[in-house]
């Protein structure tokens, strides 16, 4: 379990310049904040708090407003997630096909709860409320890859593959 907040972006080489580029690219767009936040998260896999003042200045907002938006939306992460994000659908259609069992199994396999990252930093576990794969429930998503009719064994294999792939890097 990794709960300690480390603003890793501040130590990533070239990030300050990259952030400036992203701000310059998005700031004149109508309703620029969400597209900019998405672009930052696409780049870093989360949105570092250290970026808020710059974003706020560029968009004529207060830092509190930026914080308010980041924290409102479930999709935006304020902590660096693991190398993979595993989302398990908790919505009704998947519940009807046993997603509760999958949730428990994932938590057990990874020894973590939702919104936490496995000890080896491989997988962050998140709940999700519908992936639009309801005809093939239960569904899960690993990063941007979607899986349907997922059994406990399938889920274990997915977790295993994600961990193994990283070990080889």
């Amino acid at each position, binding site marked *: 379990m990794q709960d300690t907040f480390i603003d890793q972006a501040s130590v990533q080489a070239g990030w300050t310049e990259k952030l400036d580029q992203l701000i310059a690219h998005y700031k004149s767009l109508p309703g620029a904040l969400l597209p900019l936040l*998405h672009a930052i998260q696409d780049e870093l896999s989360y949105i570092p708090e250290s970026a808020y003042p710059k974003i706020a200045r560029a968009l004529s907002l207060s830092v509190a407003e930026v914080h308010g938006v980041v924290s409102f939306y479930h999709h935006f992460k304020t902590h660096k997630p693991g190398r993979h994000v595993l989302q398990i659908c908790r919505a009704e259609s998947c519940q009807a096909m046993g997603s509760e069992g999958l949730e428990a199994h994932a938590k057990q396999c990874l020894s973590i709860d939702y919104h936490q990252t496995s000890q080896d930093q491989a997988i962050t576990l998140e709940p999700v409320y519908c992936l639009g794969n309801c*005809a093939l429930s239960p569904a899960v998503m690993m990063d941007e890859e979607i899986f349907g009719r997922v059994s406990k064994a399938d889920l274990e294999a997915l977790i295993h593959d994600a961990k193994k792939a990283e070990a080889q890097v």
Partner: protein
Amino acid sequence: MSTIVYIPRDSSALSVGAEKVANAISQEAAKRGIAVTIVRNGSRGLYWLETMVEVSTDKGRVAYGPVKAADVSGLFKADFLNTEAASAKAHRLNLGLTEELAWLKQQQRLTFARVGITDPVSLEDYLAHDGYQGLKNALELSAADIVKTVTDSGLRGRGGAAFPTGIKWNTVLGCAADQKYIVCNADEGDSGTYSDRMIMENDPYVLIEGMTIAGIAVGATQGYIYLRSEYPHALVVLNEAIAKAEQAGYLGDNILGSSYGFNLEVRRAAGAYVCGEETSLLESLEGKRGLVRFKPPLPAIEGLFGKPTVVNNVISLATVPIILHKGAQYYADYGMGRSRGTLPIQLAGNIKQGGLVELAFGITLRELLYDYGGGSASGRPIKAVQVGGPLGAFLPESQFDTPLDYEAFSAIWAVLGHGGIVAFDDTVDMAKMARYAFEFCAIESCGKCTPCRIGSTRGVEVMDKIIAGTDRVKNIKLVRDLSDTMLNGSLCALGGMTPYPVLSAINHFPADFNIKDAAV
């Protein structure tokens, strides 16, 4: 001669291995020196048969499914590309001609006419299958006549609220403004629904065409598709299709050489269910927290950035092209009562044959669940269905003969919503489902109004007491009282409709709450 093989790129098909099947077919064909042209089409929506592989023949497409990558070498051994071969005909996965599959043949696909047939990102394919005929007709009409056509078709908002689309458009048309907007609500968050996703992934041009027609009709030059972040595949397809449509002059400053201009952009949502509510969606598009706005003013009058805005669901907009192509009457001839046209119904949850069924309004739940759905996936009796997403009522078996019609559902205190039907077998505990309804509301509440923000959390606590057996009768009365407050005091449908699943669960399934009857 190269044989054309169709393998879906729809994300549900991908979720059961369509990519692996496509790779295996391509490799096996290369190994055997057989020429195949693989087309990544959309899904036909017979999801229990995915991955469904179709082989093009002069009699039509012959389907095989559900195909796994491991089946591929066996299919080649059976000479599956030569559909006349006895071995191909005898193969256990051979389904015959796709168009002759009863499940598909009995449907009335208007909005979904091309879905599963075409290559989603091929503009040529779209044009070859009646694409942009609606826009061509619209360009010949006055703005008022386009709006009248949509009004006369009887089309009502398919997002769930069922407000007449033409009347909404007419309000925007009547507003004088320097800028107007068309916003497509593609924040399809209801569990059990995926028809928006299917349109966007499998026939994106029909949505683009519908939005363009809407823009011309009301005088809007900018459109936004507010797409949920849980749909990464749809994002890729939409952006590719928009770029191609721009290049070919179907979007831009002079559409098809006319004086009309319409530009379109996809904006990613960020995982907030409440942003499916139109005013919250507009706040989010403006770059703010998705807090629900008070109405009035209506978004049609003061919408995005304070300008007149049409906010329509994907299916509503994607249905506009066929109405403009074939006429208002053609569409209005389908349906019953005040529910005109067709509804793309999505079968989901514990169902044997889940998928997309587009039919005229009027079919009953029972026909859908058993004739199309084939009963539950588990083989156990279906105990309850939830129609219309997490804010829809749970219906017991005694209500399965209700026809799909906005007014008929309203009469039994239920909603059709976005047409999603989630089936549960007899292992479901309805008290837990009622608790979940409150829990979901608590997680997704925008926090602006008290009944929703506080009521949902109190609801979870009271349900926990009921489930634990503490003062059951007293606490059920409390849930009813709380539901009354949420129903009548919430600012939007999230808090205002959470009582639908909660109270319907208590009323129809009292035994799950350990009470003798619902009259407490």
